[in-house]
Structures are given as structure tokens and as C-alpha cells.
């Protein structure tokens, strides 16, 4: 259930990054999540869909790469001005 907290922080971080880089819409967020973080990807997706702010992330897709270890990173975002 920590996925809600993580999704909330994710939205804040992407909002800040979008502002900094002049993006008005974010289409894709690529995440790297280490298996040891015990994050349920479906639950994170569900929480993100509930929390994502419109219009900036209205149509944003999460692409999650799971890998060994403790990473919990935003690898990159794709968007348009």
C-alpha cells in the first residue's frame, strides 16, 4: 500500500521536472523499480491514475522497468510544450 505514497511523490517530481523543462503535457514516464522495494506495479499504476494531475498528466503512460536491487528512479519523461 506504499504505492499511493510513491505515486503522490512521483506526480510532484514530474510536475517539477515538466515545469523546469517547459513541458505542458507529459506522455510517458519511464520508471526503474528495484525488486527489493516490493512495489506492486499494478497498484502503483492504479494509484498514479487516481492522483495524476490534469491536464499535464491526463494521458500519461507509466512504463515500469523492474530490475534487481533497491532503485526507485524516474529514468526519463517524454512530453511536449
Amino acid at each position, binding site marked *: *500500500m*506504499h504505492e*499511493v*505514497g*510513491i505515486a503522490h*511523490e*512521483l506526480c*510532484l*517530481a514530474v510536475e*517539477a*521536472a515538466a515545469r523546469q*523543462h517547459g*513541458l505542458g503535457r507529459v506522455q510517458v514516464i519511464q*520508471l526503474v523499480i528495484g525488486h*527489493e*522495494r*516490493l512495489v506492486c506495479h499494478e497498484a502503483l499504476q492504479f494509484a498514479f491514475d487516481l492522483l495524476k494531475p490534469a491536464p499535464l498528466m491526463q494521458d500519461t503512460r507509466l512504463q515500469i522497468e523492474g530490475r534487481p536491487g533497491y532503485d*526507485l*528512479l*524516474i*529514468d*526519463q*519523461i*517524454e*512530453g*511536449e*510544450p
Partner: protein
Amino acid sequence: MRVKLKQPVLQGNDAAARTNRALFERHRLPVLNLISSPGAGKTTFLERWLAETDLQVGVIEGDLATTLDAERIAACGAEVVQINTHGACHLDATMIARALDHFALERLDLLVIENVGNLVCPAEFDLGESLRITLLSLTEGDDKPAKYPTSFRWADAVLLTKVDLLPYLRCDLERLSGSIQALNPGVPILYVAAQTGEGMTEWNDWLRRRLSAEGSR
């Protein structure tokens, strides 16, 4: 347009935690973050300890609802602030920053944060604490560290509580301590019973040693 970020998802919380930590260090104030599932005995342990310690302790209580725990801690004579998260399953660094406004930090020897009862989520969120203490009561079962590893993996010490109930439980202490050590090799494991006072001397001794080591860094 692609923007490479390679940044931690929790960087907002991490930044707030760094601000908290800098404030604590300015005041030379050690801070404990107590993490456990609900009912492990965090508040009861605190009550017992507050009655015995001569340290000036401030307490931040985190719960979804009610001021029940803060009332119990206030009755021990400690300064206390209750945070109600209204559904959120953990405390984050920003909540702690707001609560700090209610303390005169220069008057405290130690600040204790009793996190929301939850063995999963609080482990992800740095609050700026100096030491993270995970509590597990023997009544929860010796399989719990393996099933809920994150809170044990990043603990600076593990307190096993309600050890006075051991004769009534099917709890294998060797299996329990072995599974904690497998997750976090070398982590100190302390055995306490707030009702009888068992293990409180060892806890006090460990904490004083650890804080003195932290302070001399």
C-alpha cells in the same frame, strides 16, 4: 521531447528530510523513528521508557485518527505533538517539519517519532531521523521479518517486544533473530517487555552508547 532525469522518485521527501536533519544537527538533537505494525507496543514501550529516563524527550505521534496516543504520552510528562494523517499510511518529512514548529528544540535531549502503525510504508520515507528503530512483538509471529523485510533491512536496531509472553506463544526466538540477521547482518536485537521492565536497562545502555557514538562523529 525526451528529458533524461535519472532522479529518485522520492526526491521531494528526501529533500525535506535533509532539511529536517540539518535542523536537528544544528540543535545537536538526536531523533528516533519508531516503526512497527499496529499493536506491537510502541506507545506502551515509550510510556515505560519515559517513566524511567532522565532525558528531556519530545514525542511526535503519528496515527490515522484520534489523539489517544498523544494523551498517553502527555500523561508521562513529555512534550508531545499528535499528527493525524487522515488515512495516509505513513509519516513523511514535510509532516514532521510542520510538527517541529510546536517544539522548543533547544530544550530537548531527544526527539522520538512514533510512526503510523504499519510495517511496510514508513520504511520508504526518510524523516531526517538519526536512528531508525523497528519494533516487533513476539505475538506477531517469528515469520514476520521474512514476510515484511523492508522495515528490518534498514533498521539501526530491532526491539522485540512483549518478551514476557514468550511462555504462552509458539515463537522460535532463534528463527526470529536469525531471519532479522539474514536481512540486516549485525543489527542489534534487543528484547524488552514494557509490562515487566525486562530489557529496559539494556535498551537504555544501548541507546546511550549509540547516541554518544553518533555525537562524537
